[in-house]
């Protein structure tokens, strides 16, 4: 615990099974992509240090399992998240339609203080498969706008398109929230022991 702290952000990635959450994270953190699909069991964690303006930021990325049978991670899992990344596959309509329920699920479970201004970021992934695309950029962008101007990125984990930029925005928005915090203790020390139960006399 050094006295001068780096900012640490908890970032949660949500979205349907197979949209590429783990691939996006791997591309961002490890600069690697694999075509093989391996379902995430429960959750996976990666970390990345980055610079936002002149601040060092450490991201603690919680990659969740999209499959329904793993979706019992509970309140504690979402607790204290600084940013939530919603992912869908631009080639599968259902994954886009489910964004609403992912967002609702997060807001219910995490219960952020100011749900309207909680930093979300939406990623439309797999744009490298352009000829199969079913969700238009316009449709996605207008959904994001209707939810309070959520930043929207079209990404390809495979081709590393927009991945770096997306995570940079994620960090920047999460920090903004942190900067807006007012420290809850008005004065440093409040002293006055409550009247204690009188158990014994003076010694």
């Amino acid at each position, binding site marked *: *615990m050094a*006295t001068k702290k780096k900012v*640490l952000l908890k970032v949660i990635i949500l979205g349907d099974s197979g949209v590429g959450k783990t691939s996006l994270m791997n591309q961002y953190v490890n600069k690697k992509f694999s075509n093989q699909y391996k379902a995430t069991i*429960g959750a996976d964690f990666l970390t990345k240090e980055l610079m936002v303006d002149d601040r060092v930021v450490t991201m603690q990325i919680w990659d969740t399992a999209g499959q329904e049978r793993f979706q019992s991670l509970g309140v504690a899992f979402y607790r204290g998240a600084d940013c939530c990344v919603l992912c869908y596959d631009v080639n599968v309509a259902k994954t886009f339609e489910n964004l609403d329920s992912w967002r609702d699920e997060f807001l219910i479970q995490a219960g952020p203080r100011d749900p309207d201004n909680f930093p979300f970021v939406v990623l439309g992934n797999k744009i490298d498969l352009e000829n199969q695309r079913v969700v238009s950029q316009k449709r996605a962008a207008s959904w994001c706008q209707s939810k309070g101007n959520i930043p929207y990125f079209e990404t390809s984990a495979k081709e590393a398109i927009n991945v770096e930029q997306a995570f940079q925005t994620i960090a920047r928005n999460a920090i903004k929230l942190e900067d807006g915090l007012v420290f809850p203790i008005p004065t440093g020390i409040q*002293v006055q*022991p*409550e009247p204690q139960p009188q158990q014994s006399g003076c010694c």
Partner: protein
Amino acid sequence: MDENNIENKNIENKNVIDEDNSKIEKNNIDDNSIESNNNNNDSNSNDNNEEDEINNNIINSSNSIEDISNYLLKIDESSGRPPRKYSEQDSSNPEWFEHKKHFFILSSSGKPIYSRYGDEVALNTFMASLSAMSSFVESQNDTLRHLVAGKYQFVFLCKYPLNLVCISSTGEPNQVIRQQLEYIHSLIISVLTQSNMKAVFEAKYDLRDLLGGTDKYLDHLIHQLNKDFSILLNSIQCLRLNNNVRNQITNILSQYKCDSLLFSLLISDNKLISQVKHKKTTSLKSQDIHLLMNYVSSTASFKESESWIPICLPNYNDTYFLHLYICFLYPGVCLLLFSNQPESFYQLSDCKNQIIKGLEQENIAEELKKAVNNHDYTTSITEIPNLLHFLYKNKTNNYSTFPTFSPPYSIHKKEKKRLFRLYQHITTHVNSNIIANKPHKYYYHTSQTETIMVATSNNHELYATFSPLETKKSIFESFSNLLLWIKNQENSLFIQ
């Protein structure tokens, strides 16, 4: 003593492994050398002094200029402190996994706060995994207490908004590790108070920001938890002192007070000399006193000047801070005065001067200094043959006494640790008689290396260690004699 009542149980010989104490002790030595050369009483210049001393230390310990510059590069620029031991390790190093006993503190959201070994930020994904484990169980409306993975045991203590986890391969009982985690939790409360901690966490503020510099106290506390018999017995050790001298000291402490003064304590290292409660209020609990002793012994600058710090005593009131005046009266003798007023420093400083004056009269100070040097005793003082070691706890006032190690235990650090671990198991067994819901009355453990006999009553617990070759008959006899010896010495062993 009825032989039928004696339980003959063998304690599993789990891996009792020596920890890296030597390294921690070395840290302490470095700390001491810092303070001995620090002649400046101005607390503001402590940082500079420390840095100078660190440089001196380096020059003493190494002749190579390259080494020095490498060392200086490692000094944390922001704090001016030398790097923590093992701070460069994380879960990507095989060496990190070699440590026998890890402690982690994380927030309920899985953000890292402290790791005994390694940099907590570098370990953030590891801590997130720990958090996922407990949150998974929590989502099923249950609480994760411990789990076993191969040779490692994981013990979890989840107290919102903190999760504390110990991962160890030392084979200690879960209950003992849980107690250690409770102590660590209390230390955090003592820095922040429970209500502040909740407010800060719920405002999404990073708890690490408010706990800067606490790692030093945590490291020291963990070190102490792994070797302190009085903590193991949930008790306080008193300085061995002539009863009349102690009474005089207590009188002096009660006499010199001011309106805001709640408690006066006089301690020597981790031993209590005297304590006085000035107001009608709850008494201090042993856990809080151990936390105080930990603060005093892990802060070199307290020895140099009068100090004034806010502190929360979790077992007294975990919502508010008290103000604590700390001053060393003589080497090894530290005065602690608790006030509920933030402005009473000068009044308490006056109290201290009067207390010193009082102690100087009638030679009490001299007697006290002598007692500090003569506290330690070995089993030979009891004149009981073949007694190797013992632990005694007076349950009416929670005071305990025990000799320092003598042969065969004093020869190897490993042996000391082994006996400590054995006592950990035995105290746990003795106090976990689930059927009767009270401690076992008698307990008899024998192995190749020693025989330990235990007797408990409403008033005391006595654990006595003998050579394994002793007959039961002679052990019973010695045991009774030892009880008698303690009874006779009670006046000087414990605060009456």
